[in-house]
């Protein structure tokens, strides 16, 4: 077993020369992806911090403004995104167990659920446009908190917009992965693209898990 490393290199085509074995290579890839996700946490964290400051400063405006959001659509979208996370987790599992057909199927399912999410999001944006809730000169709100309500919608569009952008990038990633899967690029030992994309996808899901209650549900208890 002393020449285990050399043996591993001879038998695993996906193994790069600077890694001891697939184990170490996989763990290194995971660390790299998590490092990227940490920067993403701080990026969205900045938006959440800004949200927190102004929610603390203008609680009444935040409460009023959040009442214009459609809780039903938001809740359905949360369910759709959790469903897409499940299919993504199952896709990673299928890749690890070498089930190519299932892998492609679950990737396509994830893509479809992602598109459903973006479709519902587009409908919500459209409604906001019709109700004159887009921040700017056409923004319509009454009462002493009109300006601060517009600020809420600045955060709403910045946060959900950034989230949606991540979803769109994810859609492109999924298309690439589906194509690579069809071309037999992956094996049970070597499928880092699938696994690391899964981490990204779940991260985007987690962002929404926080966005949904903070944007849609605050202040519902006091109508």
């Amino acid at each position: 077993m002393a020449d285990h490393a050399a043996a591993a290199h001879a038998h695993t085509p996906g193994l790069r020369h600077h890694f001891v074995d697939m184990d170490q290579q996989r763990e290194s890839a995971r660390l790299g992806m998590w490092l990227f996700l940490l920067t993403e946490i701080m990026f969205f964290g900045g938006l959440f911090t800004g949200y927190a400051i102004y929610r603390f400063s203008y609680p009444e405006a935040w409460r009023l403004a959040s009442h214009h959001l459609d809780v039903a659509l938001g809740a359905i979208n949360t369910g759709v995104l959790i469903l897409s996370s499940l299919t993504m987790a199952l896709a990673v599992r299928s890749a690890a167990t070498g089930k190519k057909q299932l892998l492609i199927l679950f990737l396509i399912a994830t893509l479809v659920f992602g598109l459903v999410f973006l479709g519902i999001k587009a409908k919500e944006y459209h409604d906001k446009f019709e109700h004159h809730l887009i921040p700017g000169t056409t923004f319509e709100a009454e009462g002493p908190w009109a300006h601060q309500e517009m600020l809420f919608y600045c955060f709403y569009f910045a946060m959900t917009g950034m989230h949606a952008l991540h979803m769109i990038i994810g859609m492109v990633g999924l298309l690439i992965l589906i194509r690579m899967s069809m071309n037999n690029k992956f094996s049970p030992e070597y499928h880092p693209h699938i696994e690391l994309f899964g981490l990204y996808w779940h991260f985007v899901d987690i962002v929404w898990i926080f966005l949904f209650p903070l944007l849609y549900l605050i202040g519902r208890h006091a109508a």
Partner: protein
Amino acid sequence: MSEPTHHEKSHGSQHIVPLKVYFAVFAALMVLTATTVCVAYVNLDWLNLPVALAIAITKATLVILFFMHVKYSGHMVKVYVVAGVLFLIIMIGITLSDYMTRGWISVPRGWQ
């Protein structure tokens, strides 16, 4: 670099999670989503925000541990995840400790 035990360890890195774990986590996430929507319409006064955040943090933890395989990953990945959460808490915590305490001390005419 490679010891006799190294080969046995290689199964640990690529952990195949039983299907029922994924479905159980999915079910829990759905139930928690329904819970947070229902609780939002109940007036708990100042407790509404902490309850909503607690449910969201629980959901995020489930996703991180099981869907993102952190429970089955190595120590370094766990350290990275904890570091990420820690720095997020530092950023939000210290920023809010400024904004939320500005009214505590009266500085009549600002700093002059």
